[in-house]
């Protein structure tokens, strides 16, 4: 179950999406997500789905990896859909339970909401699967660099470094959690049965060793970083210089075309 967490993992490849500049990918992702949330009708959802499908195909990342991410987020999608079904009172009333009524407007909204989250997850996965965490944090650091003019110079670098390290340690800590869980199970800890309160209590012997080990790791990592001459962002260079290419221009053009179509079908028509 824990192994399903693939957030922030990179899939090695050399597709056109891989070769895009991480800044382009990040900015376009934000833009497209905004527009997906603006969509209100079937045609524009169709366009958004086709757009996402194209991005997935061009990324050449196996489909099962995307499905794995979706599986992890499925409970949230279902939960949001259920909430939305009961919300609002437009359209024909279908049926009602107790004092909750379900109408066609609600059903539409639930489907749209589920689709939106689904597309959002898939598109974000395209970004994380095709971009190395370092590239991603470099992009964030560069995009946030205007903040240094208001006296947040160190903050931007620190944030980027924290993200790099967090992404790097996700798999390590997941593995560690599994080890601790197995160790506690071997000593007779019951993690699956019992009332909710009992199950929450059963997590304490897992979280405490995990926390202690994370703190110890942090100390060791800090020493190792110091040994590698880390001295904050001052005077640091990057091995990879980020550079916009023709691919970025094309990706930008396609994305703006997409946004144009969404506006066309939602506002004009």
């Amino acid at each position, binding site marked *: 179950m824990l192994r399903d967490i693939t957030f922030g993992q990179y899939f090695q490849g050399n597709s056109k999406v891989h070769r895009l500049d991480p800044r382009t990918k990040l900015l376009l992702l934000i833009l497209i997500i905004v527009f997906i949330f603006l969509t209100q009708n079937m045609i524009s959802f169709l366009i958004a789905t086709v757009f996402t499908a194209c991005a997935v195909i061009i990324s050449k990342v196996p489909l099962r990896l995307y499905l794995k991410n979706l599986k992890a987020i499925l409970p949230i999608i279902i939960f949001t859909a259920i909430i939305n079904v009961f919300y609002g009172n437009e359209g024909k009333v279908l049926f009602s339970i107790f004092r909750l009524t379900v109408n066609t407007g609600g059903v539409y909204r639930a489907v749209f909401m589920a689709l939106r989250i689904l597309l959002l997850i898939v598109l974000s996965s395209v970004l994380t699967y095709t971009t190395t965490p370092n590239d991603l944090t470099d992009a964030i650091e560069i995009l946030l660099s205007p903040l240094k003019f208001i006296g947040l110079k160190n903050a931007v670098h620190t944030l980027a470094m924290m993200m790099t390290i967090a992404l790097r340690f996700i798999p390590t800590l997941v593995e560690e959690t599994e080890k601790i869980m197995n160790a506690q199970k071997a000593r007779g800890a019951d993690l699956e049965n019992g009332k909710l309160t009992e199950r929450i209590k059963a997590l304490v012997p897992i979280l405490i060793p995990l926390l202690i080990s994370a703190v110890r790791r942090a100390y060791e990592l800090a*020493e190792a970083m110091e040994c*590698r001459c880390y001295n904050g962002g001052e005077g640091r260079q990057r091995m990879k210089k980020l550079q916009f290419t023709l691919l970025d221009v094309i990706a930008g053009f396609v994305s703006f075309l997409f946004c144009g179509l969404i506006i066309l079908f939602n506002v004009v028509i």
Partner: protein
Amino acid sequence: MDNIIEVKNVTFEYSDFDRSKTVINDFSIDIKRGSFTCILGHNGSGKSTLAKLLNGLYKPVKGDILVDGMNTKDETTEIAIKRRVGMVFQNPDNQLVASIVEEDVAFGPENLGLSPDEIRKRVDESLKSVGMYELRKSTPHHLSGGQKQRIAIAGILAMRPQCIVLDEPTAMLDPKGRKEIISTIEKLNRESGITVVLITHFMEEAENTDRAVVLNDGSIIADGTPKEIFSNIDMLKRAGLDVPQTTELLHRLKTNGVDIKTNVISIKETAQEIYSAFHLEEN
């Protein structure tokens, strides 16, 4: 100057609120440029503390440590010292910063502010010298312990240090990974002339070094060639170290009246000794 590191009468203690514990006690040692020194000691003998003192991670309470003539207490030379003396730790997982092999190796040179081309060159070079160049694009998480530790070594090499201090680099590895690391270190010392200080409690790893130093309670109790050290079984036992099985066998033969040399370590040499002592033909 042919000593890369000079440790002069250093004392170090950890202090907790009211009590303090002396870990390194009036300790002196010189590390020759280009040499391969092995520091042996059981758990709690102060060997990890010594490692961290060597590149200025810890500062001595008394005495001085000079790296290439620079005092580790001097804050202005801190980066210069860390650049000369690289350090590899026990747990490879806790030394890797980035999620991609080559990006992690680039971390050191990036901190030094070198040009991107120079960083690229150094990263490729260091990955090749530890035999990890083919895996430069993969994630450390999917690699074995030995491979991760080799990446950690490459990360240090990319800063082009003159000396590498390795603090029990094989303690968390399986026998295969252990062999990988030891042969990598030996190659670096032999071919690139990098000074190596290997801190360990595995006696076998000291076999091919120039000098073995045995540490107990923060002071040196023996210092010599590995052969000299290994033949002194009583001293090794006093220091709480495991005597290599070969040496133990030869020693027992000798105490039982067999005329045999006890200062050999490797299995092959031991076998030859036994053959000749019993006048057997090697076949």
